[in-house]
């Protein structure tokens, strides 16, 4: 039986601040009118209402991270020669990620399958993952744009998390989900949850039951693929798309990146930064050829990746966790749910047509 504790509302912030003595605490705080995950300090304004504007993904995949540094110098022996030194820079920050939502944490499992894949371990990601304890906060007020229940998740689920916080009367029930979450909780000066775990379970169930019952968006890998050559469909759904990167960058599962060198004088860095499949440059080849030169082709790959290619490669798991940030923040209010629904309907209609 894993540890369950309770913390009263007024004890939460002091407790989180006490954790900052030994590690970084990332939590949803108000920054300039937005709610973003940022290092918590005494001046932070914690905001636990609803979903943060940006996802928690930067905790594990920073928007910009240095892979290594390099330094050029003149060779001592042969002055015409230049010598080069490389210095690996690996993350070592212990972090407690608090207040991520179940969708945010589930996003981490999408990364895990790609970044921690057997022999191809990405040590930057894996180091961060190992040093970050993920505490999710069960949702009590899903927005209209939330659809975690349609993509294999739920407002009280714990995939990808170590600890689960559930709001109950007067405070939170804090339950360990993994062994390391358990080890952490055992060390914390929190009171026993006692029978409040039952109350927490009911809270989660009630929220889950109240979510609209709509068709799941899983298991449609082949449907999306059937439409690959249906130019009219992709152009139609993409006509209003601006081809910007707001959806990708706010998405808790989008993990594509770019690598670039930046140098000043003799010192430089190779950095990796978030990249965006909706950008023209993403697949532009040296020759000038671009396999996805139109926004329709790029959207086809984006939807394909999330709902077809990724699930095909990873046991049916989608690369979408239903947080709805791409819907809320899209400058032209595109709706990924509607696109996938339309794709399925169109593919089904085609199949029927063939069978007629």
């Amino acid at each position, binding site marked *: 039986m894993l540890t369950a504790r309770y913390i009263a509302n007024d004890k939460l912030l002091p407790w989180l601040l006490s954790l900052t003595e030994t590690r970084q605490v990332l939590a949803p705080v108000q920054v300039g009118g937005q709610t973003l995950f940022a290092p918590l300090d005494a001046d932070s304004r914690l905001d636990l209402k609803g979903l943060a504007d940006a996802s928690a993904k930067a905790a594990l995949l920073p928007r910009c991270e240095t*892979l*290594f540094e*390099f330094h*050029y110098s003149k060779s001592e022996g042969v002055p015409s*020669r*230049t*010598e*080069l030194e*490389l210095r*690996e820079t*690996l993350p070592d920050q212990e972090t407690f990620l608090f207040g991520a939502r179940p969708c945010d944490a589930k996003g981490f499992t999408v990364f895990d399958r*790609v*970044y921690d894949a057997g022999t*191809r*371990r*990405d*040590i*930057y990601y*894996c*180091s961060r993952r*190992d040093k970050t304890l993920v505490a999710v906060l069960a949702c009590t007020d899903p927005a209209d744009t939330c659809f975690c229940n349609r993509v294999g998740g739920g407002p009280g689920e714990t995939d990808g998390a170590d600890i689960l916080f559930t709001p109950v009367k007067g405070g939170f029930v804090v339950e360990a989900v993994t062994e390391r979450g358990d080890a952490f909780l055992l060390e914390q000066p929190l009171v026993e949850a006692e029978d409040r775990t039952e109350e927490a379970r009911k809270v989660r169930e009630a929220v889950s039951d109240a979510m609209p019952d709509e068709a799941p968006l899983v298991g449609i890998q082949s449907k999306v*693929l059937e439409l*690959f*050559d249906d130019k009219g469909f992709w152009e139609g759904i993409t006509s209003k798309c601006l081809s910007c990167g707001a959806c990708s960058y706010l998405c808790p599962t989008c*993990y*594509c*990146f*770019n*690598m*670039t*060198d930046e*140098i000043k004088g003799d010192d*430089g860095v*190779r950095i*990796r930064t978030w*990249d965006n*499949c909706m950008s023209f440059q*993403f*697949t*532009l*080849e*040296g*020759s*000038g*050829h671009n*396999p*996805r030169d139109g926004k329709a*082709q790029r959207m086809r*790959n984006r939807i*394909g*990746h999330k709902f*077809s*290619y990724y699930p*095909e*490669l990873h046991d049916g798991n989608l690369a979408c966790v239903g947080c709805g940030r791409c819907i809320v923040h899209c400058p032209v209010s595109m709706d990924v749910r509607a696109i996938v629904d339309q794709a399925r309907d169109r593919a089904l209609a085609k199949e029927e047509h063939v069978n007629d």
Partner: protein
Amino acid sequence: MTSTDATNLYLPDMATIQEVIQETSNIKTFRITLNNPDAMRRFRFEPGQVGQLSVFGVGESTFVINSSPTRMDYLQFSVMRVGEITEKLHKLRPGDQVGVRAPLGNCFPYEDMKGKDIVFVGGGIGMAPLRTLLLYMLDNREDYGKISLLYGARSPSDMAFSYELPEWLEREDMTTELTVDNGTPDWKHHVGLIPNVLKEMAPSAENAFAVTCGPPIMIKFTIEALHSLGFNDEQIVTTLEKRMKCGVGICGRCNIGTKYVCKDGPVFTYAQLRQLPNEL
């Protein structure tokens, strides 16, 4: 997990340029060795695999290793000048430092090709990936049947590997045909498009493999020509070029459907390609 018990996928090995060969007006070949002698000794790759070359401060770009695993004095990369990184590579001289992440990707099915006749069809810089397999086969000559090579370029001065062509033309254990789109008075070989010359050569498809690489339009018509000669899709092998960054199937840009060219490719049979969404 600590950094010491895992390899860093993104950290290049330091290497030194030993020799630079000006192949054509816009192609240079770089012969490099890893700075760590042990690493160089331990280095293994298979024909068709690629590597990422770094010019620190500019960036990284993907090139096929076009030397043969049977000749490990150096690793050879041929670079056509097309953009920022290739531009900077072209400025490098022997003794300069570069980074290498290699080998990456899959290789030509050289085991399955044993005992078969092999037809190489290369166009322009597309000859580079064929070279590694050709050299490998010439060094293991008894394992393979007839070897024929058709190499085409825009003009005689656009032919890379000119230092090797006389040997390939003279060898009795292979047939070599060269063609250019635009001839010169002293050009003694074919003038004409690769697919047309291929049809004239008419290699037998029986117990054979065709390996082709070149510009997309050339590939398209070469495959048509191969089909007309009786080659089926399983007998046609090609190697793809895509924009790549990570080289290990993570960063997300080189996929065609579920396949990542950097990891699952760059070598595909035409039969495999036809299974993939049409997004070349």
